């Protein structure tokens, strides 16, 4: 679960990680007041959206008067910001963060993440601050240093010193860096983060280290023990249909094709999409109904898939283990009856209670295409969609 920069900086403050003074505001008037309140001569106005690449998209503006701060906020708030990570539609900006601009002497990159290869929490740092770390990794991998944390003892001081020394943080900056890394690690551990990224971590006037940006991602599976983090979730940043699907226990991701997919299990769902593509079709979505799907859940899956106006046919592929084909069939029958479905529906059932499932389908008298195998199902669905379009 991602959060906004201003929210991440609030968390940083709670953990005594130094961040610039700032105010989050929802209007240009508030922005003007914030700049006057903060004081100083230069300010930075930062659009608050979850996507990265805001600088490249014009979402980070330096202003040299409170009036310019107001103008920047006016231009950003209420409009859509397009960045390299948002797609061409961009994301709506509802608020901006106004901060005092800093005199930057040096910039670094610092992140804590979970490394899948070592299966350890890992610190990553570089002296190439302010740049995309992926680009640094591709072009100058020697500029990236890592320290893996042994969970039995946690992040140790010497590891922080190694990182600080490797990126060139010397003198009074070294102990500051050690403190900052240890506090960031504590935050990462306390709040079940998957990523905590500071880019750039800057040396500013007075030889002080300051986190100029803050990005955090949290483990959705741990939210049950993190009520304060759960409260930070911004549903406006998420696809409303995906949120609705989650509420029904379905895992739905919209794609841009026309064959709607309803499948159990993420692996089989991907393979079903692949089979559709191999037959020259294009999947309209990824949808995993999960285990123990009730008739109601299946009916909800149909409804969510059909809300996509591009869908010209549906392929339902269930290989039941923990699921039951008879329940699934009841859900299909209910959906076709209640939702007046006009597009062709291809059904493939296999596994637990498959005979009972087909019995329910056959005795329903409804119009659908039966398939026994994955390949057959994908072929029928692609043909049906092409036939419907012709």
């Amino acid at each position, binding site marked *: 679960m991602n959060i906004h920069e201003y929210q991440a900086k609030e968390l940083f403050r709670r953990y005594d990680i130094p961040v610039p003074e700032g105010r989050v505001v929802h209007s240009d008037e508030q922005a003007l007041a914030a700049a006057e309140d903060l004081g100083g001569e230069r300010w930075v106005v930062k659009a608050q959206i979850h996507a990265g690449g805001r600088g490249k998209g014009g979402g980070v503006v330096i202003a040299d008067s409170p009036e310019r701060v107001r103008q920047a906020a006016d231009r950003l708030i209420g409009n859509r910001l397009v960045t390299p990570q948002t797609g061409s539609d961009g994301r709506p900006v509802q608020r901006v963060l106004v901060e005092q601009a800093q005199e930057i002497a040096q910039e670094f990159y610092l992140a804590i993440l979970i490394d899948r290869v070592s299966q350890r929490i890992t610190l990553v740092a570089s002296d190439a601050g302010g740049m995309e770390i992926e680009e640094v990794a591709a072009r100058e991998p020697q500029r990236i240093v890592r320290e893996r944390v042994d969970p039995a003892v946690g992040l140790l001081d010497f590891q922080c010193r190694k990182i600080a020394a490797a990126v060139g943080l010397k003198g009074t900056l070294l102990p500051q860096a050690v403190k900052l890394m240890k506090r960031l690690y504590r935050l990462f551990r306390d709040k079940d983060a998957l990523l905590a990224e500071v880019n750039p971590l800057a040396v500013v006037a007075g030889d002080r280290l300051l986190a100029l940006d803050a990005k955090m991602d949290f483990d959705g599976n741990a939210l049950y023990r993190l009520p304060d983090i759960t409260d930070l979730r911004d549903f406006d940043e998420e696809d409303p249909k995906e949120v609705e699907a989650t509420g029904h226990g379905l895992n739905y991701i919209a794609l841009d094709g026309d064959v709607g997919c309803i499948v159990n299990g993420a692996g089989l769902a*991907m393979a079903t999409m692949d089979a559709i593509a191999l037959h020259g079709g294009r999947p309209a979505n990824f949808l995993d109904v999960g285990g123990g799907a009730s008739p109601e859940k299946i009916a909800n899956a149909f409804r969510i898939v059909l809300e996509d106006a591009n869908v010209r046919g549906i392929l339902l592929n269930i290989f039941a283990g923990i699921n039951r084909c008879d329940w699934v069939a009841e859900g299909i029958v209910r959906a076709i009856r209640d939702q007046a479905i006009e597009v062709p529906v291809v059904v493939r059932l296999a596994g637990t209670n498959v005979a009972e499932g087909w019995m329910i389908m056959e005795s329903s008298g409804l119009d659908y295409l039966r398939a026994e195998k994955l390949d057959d199902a994908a072929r029928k669905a692609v043909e049906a969609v092409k036939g419907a379009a012709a």
Partner: protein
Amino acid sequence: MSILVNRDSRVVIQGFTGQHATFHATEAMAGGTNVVGGVTPGKGGGSHLERPVFDTVAEAVRETGANVSGIFVPPPFAADAIMEAIDAGIEVIVVIADGVPVQDMVRVKRYLIGHDAIIVGPNTAGVITPGQCKVGIMPSHIYRPGRIGVVSRSGTLNYEAVEQMNELGLGQSTSISIGGDPINGCDFITILERFEADPETDAVLMIGEIGGPQEVDAARWARENMSKPLISFIAGVSAPPGRRMGHAGAIISSQADTARAKMEALAELGVHVVENPADIGTTIHTALAGR
């Protein structure tokens, strides 16, 4: 033979008296699995499904000689349950729970160092040696005894492959889902090592997905260490980058994570790569014929 579990396995179920555990333990027992007891803290001394219930895994091991555990406790309690099983000396630990926090698994993997246990999962359909022992939630009636080892991340795609294999008369020595989480209890290599050493396994099917380096690492290991044919399917050719496809681990975050890049890397390492998910069975057949 077989790997991880067989007719001699003595299975304890953690979270025994819960609804899912009861259903799947009943099914496994009907299929011949030797469930020797269960653990539900606070219900020790009682019995369930005509088997003794214990408060701790240590007691269950002491009283029943259990050496395999199926963990059916909810995700928030899974890490503790796994470490309890490790501590009690359980050899194979199968974690069904879906939704275990990643940092919990980081600690579990640290705790595992110095112990010989193998953890399968979390977020797994489990392990089955057809006709002998099942610890998991898969529909056991679709599996047939045979000589092909199957290892997958996904559960349902494992079922799909097995159905295709059955049609061609190819049964399974043992079938395992290692789970779809970013940090698994065991990786593909751990399983491939055992299949290579198993005299009753002739070839291995490895079913992977987009995301992470696991499949390619396994193929690299296999090229150096495996004499048996390795067949592989990678799901997600049609998946877009940056979106997490159900499994927490199934996300394309770099070029090497795409299904296409993985398939090419596997083919270069001598793996028989399945192009179409409908051809999993026939590709195994061809690989065996070509030996």
